[in-house]
């Protein structure tokens, strides 16, 4: 598939995804803000050209975690967002993230021995804590450092901090330092469809589980997997095929898989 066709398919996938988020009963019941934001993004994306388009999930989508004693007791939620920019048939920007925010009640939690180190210290104690943050990116952030094109980063710059403060309260603690930008580990280029599917299968949330079993949703996930993951794994497969062919040849300098996944022409 040509890059142009590939990106057009990608845009179509997001249009259908946003439409689905707007029309899904489970999403509407869980959080009406999501379908309302989704339809707004759907309209702008549908109206854009295949050659240049921009999708930014901001404000991020907030999905409360339920039926989990540790998370639900004080109200915890997933914060999901990201952006994609295609300009002149080139993928210019690509990142998605999920933050897990957990509220706390220090005096109550100390009874259960749940207190984290941040909560034990009055200086860092806050109503809400970002307890995990994962950032999925394709691109090279620091040109002079060898880093994989498609990668996962733990923590990272928390662009959604302001949105979380506005949602929950000004009292927010993020101790996964905003300035730390490495290491970046090679990771398949997952998008928001796959990300949401993985999260909703592992956490019980306000979005009813039946959402995941709907044929329309499964179709979206498979389309996304075909578009985003197939090329990544083919690349890895090619690496191993090449390695097998070139092994023992003195003039060929064998690269590691990591080096291969860091190459500039390695586009996902």
């Amino acid at each position, binding site marked *: 598939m040509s890059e142009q066709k590939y990106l057009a398919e990608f845009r179509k996938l997001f249009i259908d995804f946003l439409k689905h988020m707007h029309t899904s009963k489970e999403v509407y019941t869980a959080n009406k803000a999501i379908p309302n934001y989704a339809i707004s*993004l759907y309209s702008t994306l549908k109206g854009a050209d295949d050659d240049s388009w*921009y999708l*930014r999930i901001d404000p991020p989508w907030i999905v409360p975690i339920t039926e989990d004693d540790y998370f639900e007791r004080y109200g915890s939620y997933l914060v999901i967002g990201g952006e994609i920019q295609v300009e002149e048939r080139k993928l210019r920007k690509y990142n998605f993230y999920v933050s897990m925010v957990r509220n706390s009640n220090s005096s109550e939690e100390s009874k259960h021995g749940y207190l984290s180190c941040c909560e034990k210290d009055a200086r860092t104690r806050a109503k809400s804590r970002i307890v995990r943050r994962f950032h999925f990116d394709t691109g090279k952030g620091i040109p002079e450092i060898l880093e994989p094109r498609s990668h996962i980063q733990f923590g990272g710059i928390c662009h959604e901090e302001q949105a979380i403060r506005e949602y929950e309260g000004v009292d927010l603690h993020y101790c996964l330092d905003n300035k730390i930008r490495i290491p970046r580990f090679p990771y398949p280029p997952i998008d928001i469809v796959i990300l949401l599917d993985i999260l909703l299968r592992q956490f019980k949330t306000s979005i009813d589980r039946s959402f995941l079993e709907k044929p329309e949703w499964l179709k979206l996930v498979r389309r996304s997997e075909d578009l985003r993951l197939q090329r990544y794994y083919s690349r890895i497969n090619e690496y191993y095929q090449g390695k097998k062919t070139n092994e023992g040849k003195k003039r060929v300098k064998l690269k590691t898989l990591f080096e291969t996944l860091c190459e500039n022409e390695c586009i996902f």
Partner: protein
Amino acid sequence: MKNDSLLIVWIDDDLDHSPDADILQEKMMKFNENVKVGFYHPEAFRRKIEEKEDIDLFLVDDKLNRHRFEGERYRGKGISYIGLVRENYPDVPVYIFSAEPESKIYADLAYISEREADSKLTYDAIQDRGHVILYYDALDYKRIRNTISEGLDKLIDLLSPPNIEKEKIRDLLPDILKTSEFQGVRTEAVAGRSLDFATWVRKALMKKPGFLYDLLYSATAIGMTKEAFKQRIEKFEPALYTGIFSKTLVDRLWWKTSLFDIVVEKAKEKKENKEKLPSDIRKLSVYAFDLKENDIAECAVCKGKFPDTVGIRPQDGKKEPVHYRCSDENPEYTKMLFFDDLRIIKSEGADANE
């Protein structure tokens, strides 16, 4: 009867109102000369109720027991007469009216539920706008009756909705309209179903924000103040609700998703190469319509820009734009799938983030 003909039956024990029915007919004949308003004392119509005429709308007085007809007095009130009408004309809408002034009508007719009467009017309203209300509503009820045997898709088309909303609307329609025996057949099983559909359109779709937005909701959804929206109102005309019962709406309504499409189209017209446009429709609207700072919608609580929805102020019931974070869920508001909630605006003094 011809397809464009209409017969409205006015049931009233006060025969002095008969000339008003004539006036009503005259006014309606300006729209369509095949309109007839038949005036009957409740007892007179009762004697012929089983004749099953091709009636399009009943207009029934709330009080029917004051004046006799040929020595006989109808002993019930308007509400009991509606029951009689429904038994014989299950697909014909019944509007009830009261001679009380508008300020009293809600109290006067409060005991009549929305299910019992399809609409409540004052006598003044009948004299003032009655010809418009009754003519266009009767016509739309007739369109529903003529379409109902063609299945749900055709019924939904009467609303002229954007494509993306059709499936959701289909999901929300009363279950009785979706049963297999109803689909595509016009039998006894469908009796009264046209009114079920009409009731859902008027009491849910047009009344609760979600698919259709009034001026304040529309403006807020695309990031504008009401004034800014009004100044550009002709640009939003393609999004206007023009489906059944739109002609008798007091306040105009717009399809939410069509408004978004208009913003996108406008931005596309304006876009120059390589410009990166915001994907949030409210922010895109600023670009598309050259909004100035004071044209952008503002939250009633934090005064921040781009409020998410419309909420209600608990102290005076006033509706204003508000962020989700600056408002709370309204426990008294009946939640409905695919419709917006009417949220309670937090008091301005309180910290919205608390």
